[in-house]
């Protein structure tokens, strides 16, 4: 196996659970496996661009996954045979949380500007640092910090949560 192939296999193996969770949270259990498949196919196609640093490689994969999400939102959709097994597993074993669990917070998030919302979701749902989220969103860390502070300010006002 070529060194780059070994590296991307390792990077995908390391990140794919988190990528699948990320995609599931954005598009649901049924469509997420296709987007994960698309992410993997694009990653293999662009294997020569894979960063050498493992952490940067992880963010690179998140960036590809985000682009598949953007394409999905534009109505560009592909079904991947390789996603079927994962889809069947997740759809059959899914357990729904209580409908109102976190609903108020998600409603407040939905009222944020899309760029701000995505940033907050990457930080709090995908547990990325501000710097990592900035990399995924292709913005500077300082821009990310400013947006994040503004987003939280708005969320505090919407939810009535005081600074502690």
């Amino acid at each position, binding site marked *: 196996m070529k060194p780059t192939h070994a590296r991307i*296999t390792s990077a*995908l*193996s390391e990140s*794919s*659970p988190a990528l*699948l*969770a990320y995609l*599931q*949270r954005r598009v649901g*259990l*049924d469509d*997420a*496996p296709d987007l*994960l*498949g698309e992410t*993997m*196919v694009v*990653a*293999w196609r662009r294997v020569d661009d894979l960063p050498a640093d493992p952490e940067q490689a992880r963010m690179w994969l998140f960036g590809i996954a985000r682009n598949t999400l953007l394409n999905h939102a534009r109505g560009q959709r*592909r*079904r*991947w*045979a*390789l*996603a*079927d*097994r*994962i889809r*069947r*597993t*997740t*759809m*059959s*074993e*899914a*357990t*729904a*949380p209580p409908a109102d669990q*976190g609903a108020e*917070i*998600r409603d407040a*998030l939905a009222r944020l500007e899309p760029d701000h919302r995505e940033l*907050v*979701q990457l*930080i*709090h*749902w995908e547990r990325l640092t501000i710097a990592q989220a900035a990399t995924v969103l292709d913005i500077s860390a300082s821009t990310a910090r400013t947006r994040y502070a503004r987003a*939280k300010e708005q*969320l*505090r006002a919407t*939810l009535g*949560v*005081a*600074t*502690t």
Partner: protein
Amino acid sequence: MTRDTLDDLLDSSAPVGSPVARRHLDAMIADARRPTPRKLRPRILVAAGLAALFASGGVGVATATGVFSWAPWAQQPVGAVQFTMSNGFDCEIRFSAYTAGSDPAYVAQVNRALEGWYRSDDVLPTVQKLVPAKLESLGPIELQPGETLETLPPGEAEHREWIRNWTAWDLAISDAEWQQLSSLGMPPGDPRMEGSERSGQINCLDESGNSYRPGAGS
């Protein structure tokens, strides 16, 4: 940065995902090197309902009666296959017609071809031949790290075996359908089918002849 109540609220607001076994992801990574987009192969939405009642447990002779619950579209399906799973469950899968698509006339032609095929005697033997390979490719019952068949909760192994079986049958039926359609000059990938979808539903009786409710006991 100091964390506060809002951070905790945001952390806990994440929608719950559904993790999958590592080996599925590893298989997907390997497959993604040789992508096979199924962009025009319609998706199948499988809903599970109450069990169908069969006159006999034998393959291909099961006959549904009115004691089960089918979705409204499944009252008059385009196609249905009755079969016995390797675990002894008697099951029936029904499929709706394809809807939408970029060329409704072509989609209707596909639906007519499938309807005719499902009326023939060729369906079950054709599908049956494909099932063993599908089961083999699916592998054994799904077990998470640390799990064994002995440590699973009551009914869980049965549930997972049921999933494994219907997945194999569903895949085999789909392959058989497209083989048939291809032989009639309607191969998968035709752009006229783009955007088309259909539904599927499965009902089963367990080995004791009781209705099997997927997910119960799991």
